[in-house]
């Protein structure tokens, strides 16, 4: 079974974001990067499937971006993927979901993948479009927002998270693509020996120009941080007064005190 896992490297979400010089995305100078959280669920699920299927499974991890994203690929290799594909693109952050999906689909076409795992969305762009668009372009069955996954006799049973905590179960045959949500699994920490061994696994680099022949459909025009909010309500006066005021506010605006 040939499995593809698509991962993205995103900034640590604790970072302070500043617009880049063109004002269309954030500046990546001085940011710390890590693997997109949802993609970690994707990698973990693929590795668990590999543990179920043994050597019958072959895991390729793919990422698009500048050279620094090799770190995310190596993490996936250290977690248990077999080989990595780096689609080299210093300007990946400026591409829209349509183009990113087109690149992945162009790579995956004719490679005989049975199953593709992606994250539900990226933590920085958050479009949630890439996975489904890849499935559409490849003609794969697709389901999203996975919180449960099982595979038996060629059939995937996917538990999906719907609004308000309601769950749904979907069955689909391969070839298929699924997008992974928080709660699907607890991603393993890569062990140190496996991190070191990731150096020895296959890592193929492909220039993005070899795969991309699509124009952007939705170009990001502007990136800006929200206006600074006021500092909330500041109570003043002596402690007794402030306590009175606080109780009044809590009664009026919340359910904490009745």
């Amino acid at each position, binding site marked *: 079974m040939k499995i593809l896992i698509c991962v993205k490297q995103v900034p640590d979400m604790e970072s302070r974001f500043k617009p880049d010089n063109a004002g269309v995305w954030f500046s990546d100078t001085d940011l710390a990067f890590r693997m997109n959280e949802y993609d970690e669920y994707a990698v973990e699920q693929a590795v668990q499937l590999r543990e179920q299927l043994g050597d019958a499974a072959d895991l390729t991890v793919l990422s698009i971006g500048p050279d620094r994203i090799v770190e995310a690929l190596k993490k996936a290799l250290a977690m248990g993927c077999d080989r990595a594909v780096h689609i080299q693109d210093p300007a990946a952050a400026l591409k829209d979901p349509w183009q990113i999906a087109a690149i992945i689909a162009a790579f995956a076409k004719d490679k005989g993948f049975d199953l593709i795992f992606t994250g539900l969305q990226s933590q920085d762009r958050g479009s949630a479009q890439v996975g489904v668009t890849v499935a559409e372009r490849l003609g794969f069955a697709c389901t999203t927002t996975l919180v449960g996954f099982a595979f038996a006799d060629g059939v995937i049973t996917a538990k999906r998270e719907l609004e308000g905590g309601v769950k749904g179960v979907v069955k689909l045959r391969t070839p298929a693509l699924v997008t992974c949500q928080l709660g699907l699994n607890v991603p393993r920490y890569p*062990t140190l020996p496996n991190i070191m061994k990731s150096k020895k696994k296959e890592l193929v680099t492909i220039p993005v120009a070899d795969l991309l022949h699509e124009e952007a459909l939705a170009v990001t025009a502007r990136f800006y941080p929200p206006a600074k909010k006021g500092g909330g309500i500041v109570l003043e006066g002596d402690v007794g007064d402030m306590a009175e005021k606080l109780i009044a506010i809590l009664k009026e605006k919340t359910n904490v005190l009745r």
Partner: protein
Amino acid sequence: MFLELTEEQKLIQETAREFARVELEPVAAQLDQEHDRGPLLANLKKLAELGFMGLNIREEFGGAEAGTIAFSLAMTEIARACASTAVTVSVNNMVCEVIQAVGTEEQKQAYIPRICSGEFAAGSFALTETGAGSDPSGMTTQAVADGDSYVLNGAKIFITSAPYAGVFVVWAVTDKEAPKGKGISCFLVEAGTKGLIIGKEEKKMGQHASATNEVLFDDCRIPKSALMGKLNDGFRTAVGELAGGRIGIGSLGLGIGLAAMDYATHYATERSQFGQRISNFQAIQWMIADGYTELEAARLLLLNAAFRKDSGRTFAKEASMAKLYATEAANRACYAALQMLGGYGYTQDFPVERYARDARITAIYEGTNEIQRVIISREILKNFG
């Protein structure tokens, strides 16, 4: 000059940081106050399974072969969350490294994989005695050859991890007549050996979860094959291995110092007095500036010492410099952090008093900072006059 970490080093740092945040940080205060070792031992096991006990150990013995820079990064991240866990990991790595450096093939196979895998929660490094602290060559514990065994008699003190160590690296006098330091040998003693007695545990100022015990040898008989390295050459081994350990202790200090500064700086941006955040006061700003500047210098000293060790150069002087500076910077950072929290810093409701207590010992163990200065100046003076 290239000051970028490799991808592998970054991933190891990230793994250590995540593990520390998720698994160590939430239990650190409890470990400090309740002296309950359960969570410590459970976390040591998990850290071993991830490969943190043999960062600089060859793969064939279950190590990660990740090098000293990775070791330094990992120690710092672990210590940010829990210094007691960090010192145990540091000593375990040092014990594995001594065995890898001077052990026979059988000794390496017998013990290193068991520490690396977590089968042994720890290994102990038993050098110090009541009469031989800064001057370990003054030790009196003896090993006397008797047929195909050695018989150990004597007492060690301040031995980290002794109650849960699976194996002890023990130094003892094998030639009483030899000049100072020339008659000491190194042995491997398994926990449970008859005559190996774990004595009283010290009640310490900090690093509470890490046990520090007396270890006694009462006609403790070990096979001749327990000798590690050459007969009467053990002191040189101890001195050499402690230099590597110092990179670990300096990195540990750095982690505690960073934790303290991060906590206090965050606090300063929230605490108001005189109608404004205290971070608006220059007095506080200078504590922040000095604290982080010194810790950054410490980080670079540590990475330089680690880099020299990994590239096969001499590194004893640099390791001593890094240990000296990092642990003193860490202590200053902890006290500044405590000051920034005012009275709250002095209470156990906030972690800073624990950081200050935990950091204090880093200026003392694995060679007091006075001894580091002795080593550094000796190395420098060699080149003059």
